[in-house]
């Protein structure tokens, strides 16, 4: 069916008129730099003050869950990457970890430590992007350029490892795509030192800057009770003062062996969210430094015929390995029938995968519990009552990633 092509708003706002005198209803987005591309906010404005908002997402709904039902468990890893595209490795590892638990596959120690290190590295890239974008939207172009410089070093470094800069498809069920190249860890140490230098500069520019504090302190306040009621997790919940972190509460991968703190905020305003993210980046660097010394030698892929591809020499040499390879490619790894929900602590909060299998090589259902989508449900708490110009930093500090929100 085709609707009227002159329609520019394929949604139904919650309010189109207001009985408040002098109010204006404005549509902010969905093509707007500060709404990170694809969110539309209908705001009723009384002068400069936002009275109420109606947040619309879904402009980037790309049918991830439907696509997953027609691809094998392996082939849908690139789709998973593109959920939270700022920290694609965390999505990869959360998904393959969930499948491995459903299959009953135990990953090798080297793989476990590498996944932990790369998850923290990805978290670093995500927080850098969030802080850089929100600072730029307030006019602090220099901080943006510094932080994106470091993020670019990280991207190039991960391109050495995985072949791509932004969306890697690096996780595999039962392991990883390939092992570390030579000199990778040495370059990692160099990047972490450069990170510290640049972050020091950004702290100096921004932390005690009068304009920054005036724009961010006491703006977009979220209380812990509101946050829990609206399902907030991750840095947003921690900025309200609740020290909830899945890496500490229900440790997975190698987090139980690491020494790290969980930074919390005081009031749950924008400044706290900025500072919690900056401190989390420092904690991630601390964890990466510990992990660099902890990675054992050994294989990265578990030697399990159900999910790991056999080596090429035996594929060409033995008929059993040839058939194994063929079946893994054509039908997909057979995951036993059942269902599982498992969550990792992604950069935005609890990223959960709910998988339903009927024993085939193709999933019956893949559902993502995405933190950004849930956060959008409570965005009005932080926007209503503040000024229109406060919408920009508040929205930036929520770190709504469209791929994750709309899936």
């Amino acid at each position, binding site marked *: 069916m085709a609707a009227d092509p002159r329609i520019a708003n394929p*949604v139904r706002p919650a309010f189109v008129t207001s009985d408040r005198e002098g109010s204006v209803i404005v549509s902010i987005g969905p093509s707007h730099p500060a709404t990170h591309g694809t969110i539309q906010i209908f705001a009723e404005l009384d002068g400069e003050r936002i009275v109420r908002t109606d947040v619309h997402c879904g402009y980037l709904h790309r049918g991830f869950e439907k696509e997953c039902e027609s691809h094998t468990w392996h082939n849908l890893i690139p789709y998973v990457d593109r959920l939270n595209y700022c920290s694609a490795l965390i999505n990869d590892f959360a998904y393959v970890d969930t499948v491995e638990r459903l299959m009953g596959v135990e990953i090798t120690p080297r793989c476990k430590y590498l996944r932990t290190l790369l998850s923290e590295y990805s978290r670093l890239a995500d927080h850098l992007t969030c802080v850089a974008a929100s600072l730029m939207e307030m006019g602090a172009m220099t901080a943006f350029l510094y932080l994106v410089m470091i993020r670019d070093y990280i991207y190039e470094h991960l391109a050495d490892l995985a072949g791509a800069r932004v969306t890697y498809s690096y996780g595999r069920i039962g392991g990883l795509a390939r092992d570390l190249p030579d000199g990778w860890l040495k370059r990692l140490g160099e990047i972490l030192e450069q990170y510290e230098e640049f972050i020091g500069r950004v702290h100096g520019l921004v932390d005690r800057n009068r304009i920054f504090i005036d724009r961010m302190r006491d703006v977009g306040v979220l209380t812990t009770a509101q946050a829990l009621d609206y399902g907030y997790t991750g840095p947003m919940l921690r900025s309200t003062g609740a020290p*909830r972190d899945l890496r500490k509460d229900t440790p997975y991968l190698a987090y139980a062996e690491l020494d790290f703190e969980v930074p919390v905020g005081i009031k749950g305003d924008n400044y706290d969210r900025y500072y919690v993210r900056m401190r989390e980046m420092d904690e991630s660097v601390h964890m990466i430094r510990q992990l660099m010394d902890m990675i054992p030698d050994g294989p990265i892929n578990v030697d399990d015929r159900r999910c790991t591809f056999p080596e090429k020499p035996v594929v060409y040499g033995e008929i059993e390995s040839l058939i194994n390879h063929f079946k893994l490619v054509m039908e997909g790894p057979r995951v036993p029938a059942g269902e599982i929900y498992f969550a990792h602590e992604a950069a935005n909060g609890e990223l959960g995968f709910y998988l339903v299998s009927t024993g085939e090589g193709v999933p019956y259902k893949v559902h993502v519990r995405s933190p950004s989508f849930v956060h959008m449900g409570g965005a009005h708490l932080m926007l209503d009552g503040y000024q229109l110009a406060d919408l920009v930093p508040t929205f930036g500090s929520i770190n709504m990633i469209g791929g994750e929100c709309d899936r």
Partner: protein
Amino acid sequence: MGAEVFEPITASLASGGEEAGVSHGILVVNVAPSAVEAAARALRNRFGFDVFLDVTAIDWIGQSPRFEVVWHFYSTEHKVRVRLKTRVPESAPTVASLTPLYGSAAFMERECHDMYGIGFAGNADLRPILLYEGFEGHPLRKDYPKEREQPLVPYRDWVASERGGD
């Protein structure tokens, strides 16, 4: 680890002999559709499950009742999760809404309604959230073909010369 937390919940929610068990560390309780709201209320108020994680559905096409609606809850105090499941038929795919209990239910129920057509009684706002006004059908149902597009803007007339080529 979660056994001491799970036992009283099982005793309370599955008291009528409903199916309940622990699956991969999560307590899974199957309840009747009419018992969902009471179960969620008990989980929140009595057992301390303060975070409502997710609601979604599974389309068991060919089976009857066709849809299985699945809720996940998390307790920040006990650090465990609970999954609540129920089955509703295709002719009346409606369950109770959890919006009176949790604020996060609003958006998630809208998404479930969009994708599967599950009705949530008590949620006044079930506008499309991921899809758009005018979209017919519910795409995550197994009988909706993946490639069926419903364009809002009619496609342009491609002129061969504009497309290029030698």
